[in-house]
């Protein structure tokens, strides 16, 4: 492994190992409950309902392959400031930090690693890296927001 590099925060979200650079993370809070928003994108779980935090939309990457779960009390939510505004990402697990990763540049390796990712997640990751614990993708909250497609959002109509 190489390093030291800019420190990265590693986590699992949507069943995938992802990372962001530590300075990108505003805060990490513990979810108590979220307020559901009608006709939202399926990855939008709702607004963080926490008296100590402004209402921030919480995204759940599991919603890219189905529907986001409603409140998951006790889940960790990483808060980011993006170009569009504040956004939260629900984490399944925090894996710690790393500065000893190496960026993988081999196109075939990167392509093979991207293949299992849902399309909208694949377009929201910027680089593949690995450290002594395994491989992970760097995740861009700005790219994620920019590529969300409202055609997936619910429409008025009979509820099944």
């Amino acid at each position: 492994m190489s390093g030291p590099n800019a420190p990265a925060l590693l986590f699992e979200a949507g069943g995938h190992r992802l990372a962001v650079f530590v300075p990108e993370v505003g805060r990490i809070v513990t979810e108590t409950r979220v307020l559901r928003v009608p006709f939202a994108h399926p990855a939008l779980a709702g607004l963080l309902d926490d008296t100590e935090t402004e209402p921030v939309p919480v995204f759940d990457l599991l919603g890219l392959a189905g529907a986001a779960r409603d409140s998951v009390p006790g889940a960790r939510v990483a808060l980011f400031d993006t170009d569009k505004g504040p956004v939260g990402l629900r984490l399944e697990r925090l894996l710690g930090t790393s500065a000893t990763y190496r960026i993988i540049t081999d196109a075939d390796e990167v392509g093979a690693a991207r293949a299992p990712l849902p399309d909208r997640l694949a377009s929201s990751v910027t680089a593949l890296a690995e450290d002594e614990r395994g491989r992970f993708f760097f995740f861009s909250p700005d790219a994620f927001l920019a590529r969300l497609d409202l055609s997936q959002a619910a429409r008025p109509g009979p509820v099944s």
Partner: protein
Amino acid sequence: MQSARHLSLHAGPFRVALPLSSVRQILDAGGPRSTAPTDPRALGVMPVPLAEVLGAKSDAAHPALLLFDGYPGPVVLSCDGLRGVVAGAEVRPLPATVITRWPGLCRGTLRSDRLQLVLDAEVLIGVVEAFTDGDAR
């Protein structure tokens, strides 16, 4: 920033607030003591479940009934429970990062005991019409 009196209610999984001035009449407060007729012929108009309008299931056996001015006639919405009237709470706009198909529907949030979505009543009636007509499916 705006503050006015809002009617706080829940409809399925949604906690919402509507400007009190937009509600023409509370026909029934719902709950086990409800006396509202269940036959739409007695009401004169078929109640529309707000939870279903918003895309979820209603879970009330005895819904509250709210009368609104619609077009071309009155609209009765049923909701799962009234929580009360919130006075003087500040309505904060939604962050731009809230990705929703109908952004005009949610005017913002207010906090009383818990966070609630403030709905725009005029837009809501439009959504109700889309729901009942099936035009927006």
